[in-house]
């Protein structure tokens, strides 16, 4: 037996791990970033981190929060929920961070949120948007800085209801929570607004699918007026490219999730006339400081255009920053109080957090793809801004949804 080696190694490991504990120092505010750096969420996370870095650097240059500098401590969740829980625990117990932000995937967000809840430290989300985080599993230290997925599904339905020609719909939803929830809630809301609309087929490609041709032909066979595609990133790009070669866009219309990064990725392959919804396309924002932000961001990132994730990370940090100033504290309950009490004038206009679910009353942007001379990539034109208040579940509904989730147990 090599028991001695084994024992030695285990002891060494134990010592190495205990060595990482730090004494808590008063000076800087520690912001833990649990980021899905590797894995499916990599691209979105990278932009988000760029936006966050810009915001933190500016705030630090201006003296930080309440005279304290902000230190960010970043960890890679590998887009795996168990890893997310682990690094969150490490950030809170070893690094003793004061706040957390960052996750992208719904599952990672939920695992981070469940772990952070115990410590009562503020967690805010700018990419991950599952409504389970703010409603069913919401807690007093969770802040969602964008329209959650449920609101987004309702917003898409409100827009679809206003298109008189859309009567027969096929849905293509990625076979996971976001896909299913969005298709279900979109259909529900649309049927309320327009009982004449029919959803004739639901197709469910698996997450990570690269070949959509069979889904395209199956959708076209129904001769729909429009195809709602609940996909993101690579899946949307693949779907659009592959659909083109079936003459899809001559036969029907596409309505899909189209943040700026997806439009940039598609560029030349993007047919005009695709309808899309997005969370914060910089060119459609009506609030303050948009132009300056775009310039600063491009300067800091080799001329890259900021996508929705960069905008949201920056804007949400601004909102938290303002709340910290108003509360004169980084204490979670006080900051949450301030977030709910004050209107923030950010890039998306006047925004305020609702107390019951910690969700920003934030807009969704819906429009049609076109090309304009200012930007070298396709953008949404004729943008309709669907205000958060219009699609947010009421406080009663939130209470009901929470009770239903508890009863389902």
């Amino acid at each position, binding site marked *: 037996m090599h028991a001695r080696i084994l024992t030695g190694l285990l002891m060494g490991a134990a010592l190495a791990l205990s060595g990482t504990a730090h004494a808590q120092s008063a000076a800087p505010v520690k912001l833990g970033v649990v980021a899905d750096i590797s894995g499916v969420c990599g691209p979105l996370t990278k932009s988000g981190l760029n936006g966050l870095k810009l915001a933190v650097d500016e705030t630090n240059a201006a003296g930080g929060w309440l005279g304290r500098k902000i230190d960010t401590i970043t960890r890679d969740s590998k887009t795996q929920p168990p890893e997310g829980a682990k690094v969150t625990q490490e950030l809170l117990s*070893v690094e003793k961070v004061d706040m957390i932000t960052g996750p992208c995937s719904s599952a990672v967000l*939920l695992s981070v949120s469940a772990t952070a809840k115990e410590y009562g430290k503020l967690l805010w989300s700018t990419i991950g948007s599952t409504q389970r985080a703010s409603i069913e599993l919401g807690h007093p230290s969770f802040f969602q800085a964008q329209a959650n997925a449920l609101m987004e599904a309702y917003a898409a339905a409100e827009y679809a209801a206003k298109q008189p020609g859309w009567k027969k719909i096929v849905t293509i939803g990625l076979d996971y929570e976001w896909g299913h929830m969005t298709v279900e809630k979109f259909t529900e809301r649309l049927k309320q607004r327009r009982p004449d609309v029919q959803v004739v087929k639901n197709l469910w490609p698996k997450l990570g699918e690269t070949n959509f041709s069979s889904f395209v032909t199956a959708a076209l066979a129904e001769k729909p007026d429009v195809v709602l595609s609940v996909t993101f990133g690579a899946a949307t790009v693949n779907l659009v490219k592959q659909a083109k070669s079936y003459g899809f866009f001559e036969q029907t219309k596409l309505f899909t999730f189209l943040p700026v990064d997806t439009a940039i990725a598609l560029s030349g392959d993007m047919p005009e006339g695709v309808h899309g919804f997005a969370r914060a396309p910089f060119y459609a924002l009506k609030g303050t400081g948009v132009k300056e932000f775009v310039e600063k961001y491009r300067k800091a990132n080799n001329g890259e255009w900021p996508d929705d994730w960069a905008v949201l990370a920056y804007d949400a940090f601004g909102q938290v920053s303002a709340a910290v100033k108003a509360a004169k504290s980084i204490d979670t309950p006080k900051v949450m109080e301030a977030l709910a009490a004050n209107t923030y004038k950010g890039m998306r206009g006047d925004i305020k957090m609702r107390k019951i679910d910690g969700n920003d009353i934030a807009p969704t942007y819906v429009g049609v793809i076109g090309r304009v001379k200012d930007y070298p990539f396709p953008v949404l034109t004729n943008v309709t801004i669907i205000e958060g208040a219009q699609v947010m579940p009421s406080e009663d509904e939130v209470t009901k949804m929470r009770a239903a989730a508890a009863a389902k147990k």
Partner: protein
Amino acid sequence: MNRLLSDPRLLFPAALVLGGAYMLLMDSGSVFAVTDILIWVLFAASLNLLISFGGMVSFGHAAFFGLGAYGLALAIFRFNLPLPLAVAAGLITTLAGATIYGALCVRLTRIYFSMLTLACAEITFSTIFQWYDFTGGDTGLPRFVEPRLGLSAQHFGLVVLVVVLAGLLLLWRVIRSPLGLAIQAVGENPARARALGINTRAVQFAAFVVAAMMAGVAGMLMALFYGNVFPDYASLTFSIDVLIMVVLGGLHSFSGGIVGAVVYKLIDHLVSKHLMLWQMAIGVVLLMVIIFAPDGVVGIAKRLKTKLFGEARP
């Protein structure tokens, strides 16, 4: 001293005392890290039984980690069962999976065995991933219970330590038992074992079930540790990670799985904090170990020891 440390009757109590002291005296951050490693140690040690002793390379060992975790979590979340019954549910779920998959898999050998374990694990993963109404789908069952059952980091760490040591002891006993000798005989040379009158399939099945049960226990510990379960528990990523651990530690010794888990987790812990290229780091270490030290970290240590202290005494 040497003999003292190599005797399990003394080693396990010693580990219990030392580990227990560590758990109770250290700050929660360190205890969390060690608790996480301990769970992986049990998981890797269970796979090591299959590979190093039974000669069965499973590509899908995480299936049982996931089954244990979900059996427990669903019992609590969906059926409101108290903890002891939930633990029983986790064990039964794992046992059911192990019996079905095991009965099928041991019909095959070598790479065909591996591929069937992969298929079984993917069926498990896909079922968990897609059965929204019951398993919660890809977003799992976050906070189906208070993390660590509401215990302090230290107390829960102690619970994990006791369970993991008990699990290791059980694995150790199995290997030393007549069954264990049969497992090794079949693992080394199935034809010879058959000639000796051993029912090879029954023996392999037994090894498969024991290993699966211990993986299930590890999965249950993980589920309680964070109060979460996710389909990732049964994913190919987890299956491969634990496979890497076993090879990294070194085949053909009981401590291989244990050492591999510790080394892998340490690399991961230290590298991923400072370097975005953590995958490359693990990849390079793997290549080095396999090419230059195919008997893993345990083998390296053994050779070092021989060099420093001369031939190991029996």
